[in-house]
């Protein structure tokens, strides 16, 4: 993989022509059937999900989808889920558990949507539920950080057995812009901020926070390698006794 600075990774993660979550879903699965709504009040378009076949294995996919243009970005609030989005994700993940199918979570978000309505609807609580219940799910659960992995809004979908990152992706406690403006009251120092945050796949792999870096796929690329890889990962996890699966997952987080 090419050597890049942390800030180049940030730019790569935010690139407009990055493969989207929806494209990944359609490239990885067949017979995909999209499911909507949190069964309480709304259907958040930033959070998409459904059921499909990965090499003939039924899986549940949940993912965060950014928009391709301004209109779509407004509809999907720039890939920042609302509480309704997180509740929809959790609903689908619990459903996966019921039907004993593994979960694939695709993350590409600057963070949970920061607006007044989301606060009123319990953004904190919604993310908290994804984390605490996500960690207990009795099925294999793999997450891929596709582009941006922004803070708690990303962690909500990354509490499973394996966390993988695309080459051009970042996973960060806050945005480099936010870090720079708090640290130095100077949001232009993003490059230094990106370095200090240690948000690149390379540094997170070294830190033991992620399990593996995945080759970057572009829109239109053949995804069969990735499909086979995920299939093999799910098989490995499915071969573990249930108690061992949950224990391994908990141990992973206990070590941080």
């Amino acid at each position, binding site marked *: 993989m090419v050597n890049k600075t942390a800030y180049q990774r940030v730019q790569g993660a935010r690139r407009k022509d990055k493969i989207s979550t929806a494209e990944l879903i359609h490239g990885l699965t067949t017979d995909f059937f999209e499911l909507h709504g949190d069964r309480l009040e709304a259907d958040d378009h930033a959070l998409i999900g459904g059921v499909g076949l990965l090499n003939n294995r039924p899986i549940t996919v949940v993912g965060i989808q950014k928009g391709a243009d301004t209109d779509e970005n407004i509809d999907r609030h720039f890939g920042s889920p609302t509480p309704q989005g997180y509740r929809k994700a959790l609903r689908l993940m619990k459903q996966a558990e019921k039907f004993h199918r593994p979960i694939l979570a695709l993350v590409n978000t600057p963070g*949970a949507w*920061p*607006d*007044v309505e*989301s*606060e*009123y*609807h*319990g*953004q*904190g*609580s919604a*993310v*908290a*539920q994804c*984390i*605490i219940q996500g*960690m*207990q799910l009795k099925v294999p659960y793999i997450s891929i950080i596709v582009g941006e992995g922004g*803070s*708690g809004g990303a*962690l*909500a979908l990354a*509490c499973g057995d394996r966390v993988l990152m695309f080459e051009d992706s970042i*996973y*960060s*406690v*806050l945005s480099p812009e*936010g*870090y720079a403006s*708090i*640290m130095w009251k100077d949001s232009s120092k993003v490059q230094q901020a990106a370095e*200090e*945050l*240690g*948000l690149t796949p390379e540094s*997170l792999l070294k*830190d033991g*926070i992620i399990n593996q870096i995945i080759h970057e796929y572009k829109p239109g690329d053949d995804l069969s390698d990735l499909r086979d890889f995920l299939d093999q990962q799910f098989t490995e996890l499915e071969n573990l006794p249930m108690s061992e699966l949950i224990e391994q997952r*908990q141990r992973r*987080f*206990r070590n*941080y």
Partner: protein
Amino acid sequence: MLQSRFKMPSHDELVKRMDAIPDHVLRECPICHAKFLSMRLGRDHTCPKCGYGFRILAKRRVKITFDKFTEIDQNVTVPDRYTDEKYRAKIAKAKKVTGLNESVLTGIGSLNKQQVAVGIMDPFWIMGSLGSATGEKITRLFELATRKDLPVVMFTSSGGARMQEGLHSLMQMAKVSSAVAEHSAAGLLYIVVLCDPTTGGVTASFAMDGDIILAEPHALVGFAGRRVIEQTIMQTPPKDFQSAETVMKHGFIDQIVKRSDMKKTLTQLLRLHTKENAYG
């Protein structure tokens, strides 16, 4: 006789006298803006007018809330791998101000002879931020409580994740949540008391995981900060959008409890959950 010699000072005179009082003696409530003498804050450090609980040191809170308390893990602190000078300076200052080695005080307390595992975040320890050692202490507290069959009371006050520790800070949300889940699966009670301010990653994890969630009056409780909302989506939030009262109205808080009633309330809740009285 005495009365006639004592003349009530004029309003202007009183204002003049107020102005002459040094700042640390005169306090202003950040919520209702009432001004009063520090001594009127009382033992509980609350606003005499609106009941707002001022931010207090964890060590003070433990004294005013529990009959007995034994601290655990008091030497757990920020790992050596964080060597940044500025961060180290902040840590040193926080330790001095609070008398704690991390942003949370943990231990076993008692309330009316009922034992309880206690966690109290300290808003003066780098804003009560969630560092790796903070998460470690809270995790160990839940693990201990699960082993000893004890309920947990957690007082939260935090600016959220600790950015100096990068993603390790974020991972604490998951680590603590896992310990909370195990405690819960053992049928044990977890009470959260949301104190001013509870925000960010703490709100998005163990602060919202309680079986019972209480809050102090007017405490700020939220996920995204006001400035983040203003700068990211150019929306101006209403004044009280993250007050405990607003959050309760939206269904995320069971009750708002004045600090002076906290001890009584917690005692009552613990009594209501004693296992001897449980069905089955």
